[in-house]
């Protein structure tokens, strides 16, 4: 497992640090070293050897932990904005580019200067003004609507309107401020009900009940930043009234207003007919009913409407895109896991379950398919189009047929945006899917496992044999010294029995046997010993094809490793 997680060039075992020959035991390595590398320089290396073993061991252990750490880091990097990390990634990507970078020192991020503080200061001063303006108008509007609903009397209404906002005196404004025409009998003065200014009929705008309904009903979340307490009170009142009335009264208002127009005083009727007449002459069309405002107030109201709309609606493309990002994130976390599994399985290891891996794979594939589909959808769906399952199913068809239909409504920018997203999807899939290793089939897996088992057995046998040989040699030397022949027989017999035990136990109910030779070689740290024992158990369980045992033992092993690390860390800290 540890070897596969790296580039593959890593070899395990008791390697001679000079000639990289694989020797099975420490004994053998030592012998080999004494025989093959006997020069001064080599001796120096030998001095380092002992410490090296310790370090290598801890490194291997850390490796397992580090992988977990890395995964966490990656997850965090995507969520937080760490400035140094992508820069590092950048520079490495750049170095791959080929131009000799060795001459260049690591480069800092260039100088930069922010103007946001002064920008904010200036902006805030102005924004306050705008917000207050808008709120003032909104409050008046609410009051107007509320009053309208309760008092159908036009005279009172006008009184109320004048009371709400002081109307500009007629004689102060000889010309329409918007179009610059002189007011006369046919071009009469009109007042904006929201700010009280004067304009001609042609320059008037009308807030339709539909429109005001949208503005006022949605006013639920106050747009206000700085509002005087007094006004706040008014607002609350207004809103209550409006909310109570709800939607249906909107039509009511219209009816009432119409009614009042029709029944209006002779003066207004005359004016109206005159207006109609003049309107025909000048080419004016009779305006829709509603609250009369000037163009400035209308612009403010429109902006308000847009704000509300933007806050509440989310275009389809955004929804799709959010989904897409979610899927991509999921894939990014799943991918490395899967690759680890696949590699392990392909190597014939039994640490992972094939079924589980297949599950993950199909999950991944589904994600990719979804990404592909969404990428595709973003390209074909226009903003207005509804996201139907029909599109989902026969997307190919729509791509060819609907292309002419949908793209006509889209601006070239929207199309380019969608193409961009689509391309991103394609690149993402290319980067991730094509690199995915395939899984072996059941049969293949069995073969692979068999192969590996044989290999392991072979290696074990070799190791054991080599160990025996060394042992024998040593013993014969000892023998020569002590000349006691019985001991040898005993030792050989002992080894023999363990061997027989193992072959038998695999056939029957399975119990792992402690391989004394491997345990004996480890250091005296009981935790390390325990780990080695478990490792040999795992090997045996694997050889015996006991998957659940392997899993359990591996879990055990991992726990032990973690614990071991915790201890070591603590020690390190204490030191």
């Amino acid at each position, binding site marked *: 497992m540890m070897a596969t997680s790296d580039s593959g060039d890593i070899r395990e075992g008791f390697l001679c640090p000079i000639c990289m020959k694989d020797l099975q035991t420490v004994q053998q390595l030592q012998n080999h070293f004494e025989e093959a590398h006997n020069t001064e320089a080599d001796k120096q290396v030998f001095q380092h050897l002992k410490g090296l073993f310790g370090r290598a061991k801890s490194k291997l252990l850390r490796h397992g932990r580090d992988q977990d750490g890395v995964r966490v880091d990656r997850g965090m990097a995507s969520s937080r904005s760490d*400035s140094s990390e992508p820069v590092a990634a*950048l520079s490495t990507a750049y170095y791959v580019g080929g131009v000799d970078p060795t001459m260049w020192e690591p480069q800092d*991020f*260039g100088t930069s200067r922010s103007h946001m503080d002064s*920008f904010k200061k200036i902006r805030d001063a*102005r924004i306050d003004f705008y917000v207050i303006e808008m709120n003032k108008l909104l409050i008046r509007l609410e009051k107007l609507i509320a009053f309208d609903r309760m008092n159908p009397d036009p005279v009172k209404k006008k009184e109320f309107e004048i009371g709400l906002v002081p109307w500009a005196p007629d004689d102060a404004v000889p010309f329409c401020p918007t179009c610059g025409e002189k007011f006369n009998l046919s071009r009469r003065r009109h007042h904006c009900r929201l700010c009280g200014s004067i304009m001609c009929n042609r320059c008037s705008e009308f807030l339709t009940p539909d429109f005001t309904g949208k503005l006022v009903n949605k006013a639920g979340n106050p747009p206000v930043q700085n509002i005087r307490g007094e006004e706040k009170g008014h607002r609350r009142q207004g809103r209550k009234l409006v909310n109570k009335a709800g939607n249906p009264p909107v039509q009511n208002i219209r009816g009432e207003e119409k009614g009042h127009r029709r029944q209006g005083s002779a003066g207004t009727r005359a004016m109206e007919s005159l207006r109609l007449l003049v309107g025909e002459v000048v080419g004016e069309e009779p305006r829709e009913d509603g609250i009369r405002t000037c163009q400035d107030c209308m612009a403010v109201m429109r902006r308000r409407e847009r704000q509300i709309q933007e806050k509440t609606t989310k275009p389809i493309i955004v929804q799709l895109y959010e989904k897409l990002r979610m899927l991509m994130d999921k894939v990014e976390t799943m991918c490395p896991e899967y690759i680890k599994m696949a590699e392990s399985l392909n190597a014939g290891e039994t640490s992972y379950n094939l079924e589980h891996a297949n599950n993950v794979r199909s999950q991944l594939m589904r994600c990719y398919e979804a990404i592909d589909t969404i990428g595709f959808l973003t390209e074909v769906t226009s903003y207005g189009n509804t996201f139907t399952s029909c599109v989902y199913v026969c997307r190919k068809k729509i791509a060819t047929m609907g292309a002419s239909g949908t793209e006509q409504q889209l601006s070239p920018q*929207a199309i380019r945006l969608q193409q*961009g997203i689509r391309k991103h999807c394609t690149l993402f899939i290319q980067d991730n899917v094509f690199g995915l290793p395939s899984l072996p089939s059941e049969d293949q897996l069995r073969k692979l496992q068999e192969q590996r088992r044989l290999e392991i057995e072979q290696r074990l046998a070799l190791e054991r044999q080599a160990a025996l040989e060394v042992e024998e040699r040593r013993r014969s030397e000892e023998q020569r010294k002590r000349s006691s022949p019985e001991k040898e027989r005993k030792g050989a017999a002992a080894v023999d029995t363990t061997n027989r035990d193992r072959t038998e136990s695999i056939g029957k109910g399975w119990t792992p046997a402690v391989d004394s030779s491997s345990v004996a070689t480890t250091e005296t740290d009981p935790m390390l010993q325990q780990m080695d024992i478990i490792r040999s158990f795992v090997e045996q369980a694997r050889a015996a094809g006991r998957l659940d045992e392997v899993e359990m033992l591996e879990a055990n092993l991992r726990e032990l490793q973690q614990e071991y690390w915790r201890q070591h860390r603590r020690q390190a800290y204490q030191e």
Partner: protein
Amino acid sequence: MNVVLAVKQYVAKMIEDSGPGMKVLLMDKDTTSIVSMVYAQSEILQKEVYLFERLDSQGREIMKHLKCICFLRPTKENVEFLSQELKNPRYGIYYIYFSNVISKSDVKILAENDEQEVVREVQEFYGDYIAVNPHLFSFNLTGCSQGINWTSQALARSCQGLTALLLALKKCPMIRFQNSSEMAKRLAENVRQVISKEAGLFDFRKPDVPPLLLILDRRDDPVTPLLNQWTYQAMVHELLGIHNNRIDLSSVPGISRDLREVVLSAEHDEFYASNMFLNFGEIGSNIKELMEDFQKKTKSQQKVESIADMKAFVENYPQFKKMSGTVAKHVTVVGELSRLVGGHKLLEVSEVEQELACKSDHSNHLQSIKKLFQDEQVSELDLVRLVLLYALRYERHPNNEVHWMMDALGRRGVSDRYKKLVSAIVEYGGSKRRGTDLFGTDNTNPISFTKKLLKGLKGVENVYTQHTSLLQDVLDQLIKGKLKDGSYPYLGTSTLRDRPQDIIVFTIGGVTYEESLAIHNMNRTTPGVRIVLGGTTVHNTKSFLEEVWQATQGLRFQYTNAQASPQHRWT
């Protein structure tokens, strides 16, 4: 001191600061080139930037769901466009980055127009130059002078660009300039002014040896941009023209559609990165290798019989496709280069050019040029450049035959404009304009004399690349501490005592890829010294002639009337 990386870091930071979500990158004409030089589109797509828009393009649609990253030069025009944009914002949130120093009043205008509070960030990120290679930058300014003096626009742009580069690299340099050039002096003074005005920005940690900014003038060396080139990058620029890493192949006979315009970027094309500084012969063999490698792969790809083969194909497909793209591109480019080399007898022409540039041998040179004039295959441009080189080298030769050559050019049907260039170049970079001994003719100068001797002793390795640019000599002397204070004075009183370490060289009137290669080699071979080269633009002969043409507008020419008298003899 990596100019490409500096811009890349800026752009990456901008994108990163805006957080996750769909993004649009809003740029102007200049910043579009700046960004496109360092980032490939696919690379930027992966950072969720899906749209690239020009600030001045009309009728952009409202897309409130996008975050907008603005990267703009702080021009009056841009500020105006941007305030319009902010008044009626098309995108949800704005992150604004200016590529240079922006005035307080402009910030105020923008702030006042941001009525809807869409702006989240206003910053200065000093990526205000075109990063061509890690050691080479340009401002894409052709024709920076008129009547041998700055156009005010070009001066302003060069000054802004240079100060931005210094800020991006975090260098506050000492400044030296070429004394013979009024333009160099003015630019140096302007840069210095900005540095003292923005002292707060230039307040970096002081290194042991302060960096050095050396400002030169192209007019001191008009020869280098007139030569045919034989290294890949330089050759492509000379024969096909590179504009912002793109080359236009649409004039190549029988070109396929997707190869009409190809991108040559060392950042994203490994083959190019490792071959751009190699000479034509080496490229040929490398291309052959690439082809063979590719064919081997294609062969293995072709036998798709089993499912396993299919799988292998699909798994290798992205690399395969990438490789096939690279192969097709470079094979086409190199093929076109060799067609041009063969078709216009460039080897013969180049040999004479190099001789003209490096040696003084009037009768022989005259003979070679006359011979080439009779050859129909030699192109007009090549004849013109030979005449220009001849006119420069033998400007004061008593028996020079410039007039005969101009007549001969006329007989070949060369346009009047090119003929006028013969006088123009003498006016632009003739001996009285030059501050240094370009041709090494002054035997009283011991340095150039010994150099000439050494050159003669060493012999010539390659006749096509024997020329070394003046820039290389100047930098050699600078590094050795032998550059004369009289010819290249310091601005201000302080001088550099130690051997310089970080050197930024800027050539008014443009640099060439030959010089870029020289700097690249110096960077590699001189430990402890880092050099960055820049120019108002990167020239090939055509663009250089345009530069000369514009620079000499409004001057009186020597060769316009039939009678021209060399002032005095020289040996």
